[in-house]
């Protein structure tokens, strides 16, 4: 188990970048006591053999450092320990979708953590990757799209100055859909 679920989100996003994704979508919904967490990307995808190995903590596609790849195995462990489900849909050249369903009220569920602080720095340090964040809950559905945001602001890339406003947008959205904890 890890300290908060946003650490898993950061790991999943890192996997998408490593797969060369140019479009990444993060979906979080809280419906009927279940948190659905989904990351979709248009990266290189995996074949059956690679997908089987992805759940092994002693396997990694990283070329440097220790040959340990804990991103997906740790997420799988968290989901299993909470009695949830995890599905990975992928094909070579066709992107990857990781979708987990987690019981929100399980006593051992790690807190969601600060999603804004996790995701916004990743967005700002990933030029050339477009992000879409979809949040659902409390009867609301909110979409934050970096492509649309840049069009509205008339800019070609998001600069560090966007950090504050983006963090506020994510936090407000989390609050509206009922995903903000500890407030």
């Amino acid at each position, binding site marked *: *188990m*890890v*300290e908060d679920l946003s650490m898993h989100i950061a790991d999943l996003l890192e996997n998408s970048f490593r797969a060369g994704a140019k479009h990444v979508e993060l979906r979080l919904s809280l419906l009927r006591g279940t948190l659905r967490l989904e990351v979709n990307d248009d990266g290189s995808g995996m074949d059956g053999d690679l997908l089987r190995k992805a759940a092994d*903590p*002693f396997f990694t596609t990283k070329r440097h450092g220790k040959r*340990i790849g*804990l991103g997906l*195995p*740790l997420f799988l*462990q968290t989901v299993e320990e909470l009695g949830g489900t995890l599905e990975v849909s992928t094909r070579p050249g066709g992107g990857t979708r990781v979708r987990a369903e987690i019981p929100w009220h399980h006593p051992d569920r790690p807190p969601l953590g600060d999603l804004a602080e996790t995701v916004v720095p990743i967005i700002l340090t990933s030029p050339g990757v477009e992000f879409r964040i979809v949040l659902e809950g409390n009867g609301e559905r909110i979409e934050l799209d970096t492509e649309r945001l840049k069009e509205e602001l008339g800019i070609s890339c998001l600069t560090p100055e966007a950090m504050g406003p983006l963090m506020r947008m994510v936090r407000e959205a989390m609050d509206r859909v009922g995903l903000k904890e500890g407030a």
Partner: protein
Amino acid sequence: MNAREVARALGLEAVAFPHPEAEVEGGFCSDLLSRAMAEASPGEAWITYQRHLNVVAVAKLKELSMVILARGPEPEPEVAARAEEEGVNLLRSGAGMFELAGRLYTLLSRGPRNR
């Protein structure tokens, strides 16, 4: 003090013990793997209730001297086999984490450097 001496002093049962000569330089307690990844130091003995294969991977990543599984069920055979294969010392005890931590702390405090 090495892992074999610690195992003997604490009455630990070996699940996988490929490096009994590993020097135990301290201890660390946590069931949060993220906390172990962030804070455990090489050479430390990690006491945990967790039995997942990921524990073995974290212990290897952090170059820990041994993992001590506190009171609980036996780990799955695959976990024992992978610990052996990956060179991670994995031992278990019938004692709880609190007791193990206290006994290990006392044991290491009596080591040559602390006399």
